[in-house]
């Protein structure tokens, strides 16, 4: 199970996954959770900006951008 976990940044644009773990420092983690990115939330990687940073994701019906640095610490279970 854990073996298949990937950081969010491993997803291709357009790929969907479910949030499995947030290993960010408390402040960033708390903010993302308040915004609805809690464990178990389905999320879609919408696109990467130039040079793959920042990136745009979609969950709970809205779009959010975050930097690669934060996204690398969000682990997801891809939906095949």
């Amino acid at each position, binding site marked *: 199970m854990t073996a298949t976990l990937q950081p969010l940044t491993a997803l291709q644009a357009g790929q969907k996954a479910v949030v499995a773990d947030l290993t960010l420092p*408390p*402040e*960033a*983690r*708390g*903010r*993302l*959770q*308040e*915004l*609805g990115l*809690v*464990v178990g*939330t389905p999320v879609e990687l*919408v*696109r*990467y*900006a*130039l*040079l793959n*940073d*920042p990136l*745009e994701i979609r969950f*709970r*019906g*809205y*779009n*959010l*951008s*975050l*930097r690669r640095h*934060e996204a690398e610490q969000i682990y997801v279970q891809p939906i095949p």
Partner: protein
Amino acid sequence: MSSGGATGMSSPKTPPTALRGPGAPAAYLFITGNPNSGKTTLFNALTGLRAKVGNYPGVTVERKEGRMQGAGEGRQVTVLDLPGTYSLSPHSPDEQVARDALFHRIPEVPAPAVVAVVADASNLQRNLYLATQIIELGHPTVVVLNMMDVARKNGIEVDASALEAALGVPVIPVVASSGEGVPAFKRAVNDIIQGRRSAVGARSFCEPSAPFAAEAQAVAAGIPQPVTPQHSLAEALLLLSDDRFLESSAGHYPESIREAIRAARRRLEESGVDWRSAVIESRYQAIAAIQQNVTREATPPGHTFSDRLDRVLTHKVWGLLVFVAVLAAIFQSIFTLAQVPMEGLEHGVSWLGQHVEAWMPPGALRNLLVDGVIAGVGAVVVFLPQICLLFLFLGLLEDSGYMARAAFLMDRLMTKVGLHGKSFIPMLSSFACAIPGIMATRTIENQRDRLATILIAPLMSCSARLPVYTVLIAACIPDRELWGGLRAPGLVMLGMYGLGIAAALGMAWLFKNTLLRGPTPMLIMELPPYRRPMARTVLRHVWDRARLFLTQAGTIILLINILLWFLVSYPHNQDTRTRFEARRAAVQAVPPTATAPEAAAARAAELARIDAEEKGEVLRSSFAGRLGRAIEPLIAPLGFDWRIGIAIVSSFAAREVFVSTLSQVYDVGDEDDPAEGGNKLAGVMRLEKRPDGSPMFTTLLGVSLMVFYVFALQCVSTIAVVRRETASWKWPLFQWFYMGALAWGFSFVVWQGGRLLGWQ
């Protein structure tokens, strides 16, 4: 709550004057909600065009309040538009103000009679997070379900009455942009204020595990002054689960509670409870269940118009091209469109000055009025066209949702110097004028980043440097072709702009790594759906900015301009005046034998020359002249003499004053047409010699002086605006010194280095 006492206000016996008097308590309606939920649109719909805009004490967070129109029923309702926030856990000064107002922690803000939480119906879950948090606080609360039209368009039907049943407080569906549902909302607010409708929620929206609930109960019992007595449990949950909430509440909780909270967290950690996540996760579970029950997806969610637009606008290649095109269009329009009203204002001010001059008897009072006050007002209002235009465009970008995309596109570039994508637009705006650029930094949430952007913004060469560069290039840079058709003047001009940009980026990096060191702020930023900007919102934004500038910065600018006028005009020397009067009289006394037009013209020219000489003499012997001489030892190592010193001192009012002051110093006199005056001045400057007979304005001196103007903060208006935007004199003074030091250092290197290399 005090809502019971309010009903007495509608009694016919109450004299109406008492309602308007200072003692009459207006009922406060707070409007809160997520950013982009349409809060401000609702505020505008409720208050019409009358609203007061100011700051909360000690912070540069905008406070907007206004009277609810058509409130009726005796009691006035004051609407307070709180800054947008995603939760009660503050991550920025804006969010902290929103939280503090809801917790009665701002002495100037009374307790709310009603709290309206604006929730975006097309993005219900995240909006309900804040809404449920606020309902639990126990204020009378109304949930305003906004953007029902957008939700419908996206195929989502929200059942407002089902939501009302689930939340336990009134839910009013509205479309704030069209005004649909706003009357119903006003009725609901009135009903609640009059005590006819209950709006205090009783439900809790998170059910943490038993150990957590027990700890929360214990903490709740110890809270001395809960926000409302019946809801201390909600406050205890916040305190227990949220570091930020506790950290940002310094002084509001006694040490005993803090210690109890720390102990409770330790116990929870030991039993394996993630106290940071437990409450948030539980709340989102409850919200997801509510949302399932109250919404129906009429059509399966597909790609909206906004999604399709974003495929182009945030595309790696097309997105950047569109961005560059948008910016180019904006700057072209600012330069061309602002020119006309700016010239109009300048003409208007000089027209006024001339009329007052003609109408008043000569004397110190007239000089004060014309050259001090009226010219000072001119110096303030001349910024208005640029400020208005820039904020018109920024308002359009912001209200349409494009601004977040611009930050998304530019973020990578800006992080290289430790800044945020949102710093890009203010920096770019500063090419037109640093004042709107600095005012535009308010969109940057992180204080350190905002400050860093404010500190570097004036390094971008603004339009006021242009006349300085132009005159110096004309006077000092020979018009030679260098390489491949590139000419020296153009290259030097480009070089000055490049130097400013490089310095701005370098200083940003330096500040972010020293003085304003901190983690690179996160870019956790919503990309809201695109929508058509609303004329009312955008124009109101422009109006608020213009008014803020005039009332807050304008007064300081005016005062300093009057002071500078005094420095360049005083002390008066009676001898000088008598001497020049005599010379004028001598010219005028020549009997008009020759009535030929050439003779009359020659006489007029002679008189003008005498006037110019007198002005030059007055200036040279003025306080500013003495200051120029006093600072000569300081600026001599840069190649500058005391005459340039005078121009530097007086152009502290605004950089372009450099040109007119030099004209006076070199007895060129005033010229109505600035281009003409500049050419004439450049011609005189080319002939100017140093005491040893060598030419004064050499290429090297020109470059040294231009470099000085690239860096030096020669603009009182910028200083006044920075003072306002940072709410202290500390930062503008620091900025003035650091930029002055850079200016001196770089000019020193240019002049001394150039001379060592044998350049001229």
